[in-house]
C-alpha cells in the first residue's frame, strides 16, 4: 500500500498515534513519511493522540490476591502438580520394569523350547538304538 498523507490518516484513525500499534508491514514506511513530513503528520494524528490519551485513562484492573490464589489452586485441581509428574514418571518406570520381566520370562520359555527341540534328534536316535538292542539275544549280551 502506498504511504501518503491519506494512509497516515487512516492508520492514525484506526490504530491511534502510537506507531507501535501500527501494522508491522507498513510501520517503516509510515515512520519515514512522518519523519519527512513532521508538521503535516502531527496535524493528521492530532485527534488520534487525544483518543489514545483518553483510552489510556481507563484504569487497568488489579488482580486481587484472592483471585490469584484461586487460579493457582485451580491448577492443582486440574491435575497440574509435580506430584502428578512424579506419578507419571513412576508409572513409566513400573511399566518399563514389567516389560523387562515379561521379556525375561519369554527368554526362559524360548530357551527351554529351543533346548527340547535341539535334543529331540539325539533322543530319537537313542530310542531307535535301544529298539535294535531288543533283537539281540540276551545270552549274546550276558554271555
Amino acid at each position: 500500500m502506498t504511504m501518503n498523507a491519506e494512509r497516515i490518516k487512516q492508520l492514525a484513525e484506526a490504530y491511534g498515534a502510537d506507531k507501535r500499534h501500527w501494522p508491522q508491514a507498513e510501520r517503516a514506511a509510515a515512520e519515514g513519511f512522518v519523519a519527512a513530513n513532521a508538521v503535516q503528520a502531527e496535524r493528521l494524528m492530532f485527534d488520534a493522540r487525544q483518543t489514545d490519551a483518553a483510552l489510556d485513562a481507563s484504569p487497568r484492573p488489579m488482580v486481587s490476591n484472592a483471585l490469584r490464589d484461586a487460579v493457582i489452586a485451580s491448577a492443582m485441581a486440574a491435575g497440574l502438580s509435580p506430584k502428578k509428574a512424579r506419578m507419571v514418571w513412576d508409572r513409566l518406570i513400573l511399566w518399563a520394569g514389567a516389560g523387562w520381566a515379561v521379556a525375561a520370562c519369554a527368554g526362559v520359555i524360548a530357551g527351554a523350547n529351543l533346548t527340547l527341540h535341539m535334543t529331540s534328534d539325539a533322543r530319537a536316535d537313542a530310542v531307535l538304538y535301544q529298539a535294535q538292542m531288543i533283537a539281540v539275544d540276551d545270552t549274546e549280551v550276558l554271555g
Partner: protein
Amino acid sequence: MFLREQAGLSAIADPDEDLVRRVAQGEPAAIQAMVARKLPRMLALAQRMLGDASEAEDVAQEAMLRAWKQAPKWRPGKAKFDTWLHRVALNLCYDRLRRRREVPTETPPDRPDEGPAPDAGLLSAELGLRVDAALKRLPDRQREAIVLCHYQELTNIEAADLMSVSVEALESLLSRGRRALRQSLADLASANPATRRAGAERG
C-alpha cells in the same frame, strides 16, 4: 523445529512455548509465572469487554482453568498460546454478553454519558470511569477491536484472526469505534484550554 519444517508446517514462534511445557509438567514456579503473565491480561480483557468487575473475574478464572487443562495437550507451532487464550476468554465474554441480551436488564442502553460535568481539573480516576462508560456503550465488535489492538496490544493480523474478519474490516471497526469514543468524550476536549488552543492551531 526441523521436524516441523520437514512436515511442511509453518512454525509460529511462541514466547510462551517453554512456559506452557513447564506448566504441563506441573512445575509450581511455571504455574506462578503463567498466572503473573496471563491472569492480568485476561482480567483486563474481560473487564473491558464486559464492564463488570465480578463477571470479569469469573471469566478470567475460567479462562485460566482451561489453560491448565490445555497445557498438557498443547502442540506448539500451530498457534500462539496467548492468542488461543484470548479466543477462549473472548468466547466466554460473548457467552455472557449474549445472556445479558436474552435477559433484559433495567440499565438503559445507549444513553448520552451523564458523568461529571466537563472540568479541566477532572480527576484521572473520574476520567477513567468516563472512558470505561463510553467504551461500554460501544457496539460489541467495535469495543472488541479497540480492546484487542489498543489494550491487549495484539497485532492487526492477530486481532483480525481472533475476530474472524479481514484486516480491512478490523480497521473499519477500529476507526468507527474510536470516532464514537471521541464524540462521546468531546466535552472533555472542549473543556481543556490546551486542547482548544491546539485545535485552533490545527485549523
